[in-house]
């Protein structure tokens, strides 16, 4: 019985020739990540260790991004705690305001995540780096503390579901529509404890930013990780961003999967997840048959959709148009580099001319922190990843998850719409 791509990476990291689903292993870690919400809890736990210090100051990344720039005094204290810890332990990859970005957009850009790596992060969207052929998964603060101290973590080797992607997505259909379609199909616990392995010749038709978006939301189907094979495009990305050595793993021919699904990308339509679960999906065609959903706010950004492709698509929709009267449209480039490039390409000017605002990188509104909190009964179309009750503000507010194209079109029309309707 062969191994999946994920199982091969885990076997190598545990120093074993072979692992199988269900086996408990201890793996060596290539990177341990934390943010301004999860790191303070981990830092407090670090004090309880009898052995002091961190396992490797180059293999820890601390990225204050959730409530940064500090939204209030308590958040400022959290950030101070992380900053002081980074200074004391001489952490190489601590990213201060001015150089930070949303962690899951920032780390690949900085070359810290490459193929074959085993990465844990105290943030559930750590699964994003599977787009580069790494095993990466979200953990809590105690696991982060143990990882920082020992450079190791325990894992139960996951079984896998295989998604065979074929064909080419139509115009205005992107990675977000692919992953929302999949979550709609298998449900928010459809991949519970499992790997989601994406294969097939359709991958060649997905940009790296599409793949980051897809891997990013594996957790929204309950997945342990999402992972893509490393093709020429992924290898080019790694080489352009990193000088770290990388290893490309491929699933064995006789690897066993719990299930396989074939998805023809050319048949996908712009897809929106209605409140209050990412699995409540409807295509834009289904939505047209419903009563129009009027919205108050649009958010374009986050670790899911705040990358350059996302901003380019949104700008293409908003060019020479204006957001609807009374609409609040908030655009958040995910990193400083993306912000700068978007500025050079004139995208930020397009957003501002369209009546949107542009913010410094932050997770802010996605988790209801700040920078776009919803009042009672308000509705938001958002390119973020979760539409749980109260996620972005008041418990009676509503979040509709969508791609940057749909979010931008909806900002113009004032109701949920696709660009083709403009």
């Amino acid at each position: 019985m062969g191994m999946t791509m994920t199982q091969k990476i885990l076997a190598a990291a545990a120093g074993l020739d072979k692992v199988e689903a269900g086996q408990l292993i201890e793996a060596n870690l290539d990177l341990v990540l934390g943010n301004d919400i999860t790191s303070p809890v981990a830092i407090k736990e670090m004090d309880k260790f009898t052995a002091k210090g961190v396992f490797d100051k180059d293999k820890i990344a601390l990225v204050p991004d959730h409530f940064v720039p500090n939204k209030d005094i308590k958040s400022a204290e959290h950030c101070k705690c992380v900053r002081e810890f980074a200074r004391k332990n001489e952490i190489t990859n601590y990213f201060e305001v001015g150089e930070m970005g949303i962690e899951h957009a920032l780390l690949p850009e900085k070359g810290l995540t490459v193929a074959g790596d085993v990465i844990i992060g105290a943030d559930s969207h750590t699964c994003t780096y599977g787009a580069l052929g790494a095993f990466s998964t979200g953990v809590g603060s105690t696991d982060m503390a143990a990882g920082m101290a020992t450079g190791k973590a325990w894992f139960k080797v996951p079984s896998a579901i295989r998604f065979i992607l074929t064909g080419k997505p139509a115009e205005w259909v992107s990675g977000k529509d692919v992953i929302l379609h999949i979550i709609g199909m298998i449900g928010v616990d459809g991949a519970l404890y499992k790997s989601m392995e994406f294969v097939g010749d359709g991958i060649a038709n997905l940009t790296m930013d599409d793949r980051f978006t897809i891997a990013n939301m594996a957790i929204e189907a309950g997945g342990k990780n999402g992972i893509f094979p490393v093709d020429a495009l992924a290898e080019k990305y790694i080489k352009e961003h990193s000088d770290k050595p990388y290893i490309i793993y491929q699933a064995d021919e006789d690897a066993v999967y719990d299930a396989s699904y074939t998805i023809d990308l050319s048949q996908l339509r712009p897809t929106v997840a209605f409140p209050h679960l990412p699995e409540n999906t409807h295509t834009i065609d289904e939505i047209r048959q419903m009563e129009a959903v009027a919205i108050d706010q649009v958010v374009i950004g986050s670790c899911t959709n705040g990358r350059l492709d996302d901003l380019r698509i949104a700008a293409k929709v908003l060019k020479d148009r204006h957001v609807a009267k009374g609409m609040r449209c908030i655009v958040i480039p995910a990193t400083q580099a993306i912000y700068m490039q978007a500025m050079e390409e004139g995208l930020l000017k397009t957003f501002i001319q369209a009546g949107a605002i542009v913010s410094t990188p932050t997770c802010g509104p996605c988790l209801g922190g700040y920078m776009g909190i919803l009042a009672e009964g308000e509705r938001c179309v958002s390119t973020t990843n979760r539409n749980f009750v109260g996620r972005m503000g008041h418990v009676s507010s509503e979040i509709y998850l969508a791609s940057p194209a749909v979010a931008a079109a909806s900002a113009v029309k004032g109701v949920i719409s696709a660009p083709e309707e403009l």
Partner: protein
Amino acid sequence: MNAKGRVFKYGDNVDTDVIIPARYLNTSDPGELAAHCMEDIDRDFIKQVNKGDIIVAEKNFGCGSSREHAPIAIKAAGVSCVIAETFARIFYRNAINIGLPIIECPEASRGIQAGDEVEVDFDSGVITNVTRGTSFQGQAFPEFMQKIIASEGLINYINNK
């Protein structure tokens, strides 16, 4: 090790945003977090919960964010055990790592109602519904996880190794 208490019952997909909303994540103090535990799904929870009480839920309990603040808030609110049909994987790890007992048992999830008096024996995995006179076999932890729980969390387990 045993737990005994009155049950608060919830459905599928209780996410970490409703267990502890992010607007309170500017603190990591267990007491402050507990004061807002379950606020967005059950405003009365924190007023009514007593030390030792048990949460019973259905599928995918603790889905969403990796915030360890969620099991910390539940534990600090006095809850002695969470029983569910299934748990989201990060919540599962976090609960074990901080020493909050949790147990998967679909039959118990279906056979227990809000307000029932329930007893859990962690060594055997047996869950007894005292109110209704029924019992269920929950999944006992693998030996490795039992050691983490016996050490009262992952850090002590590593220190002792």
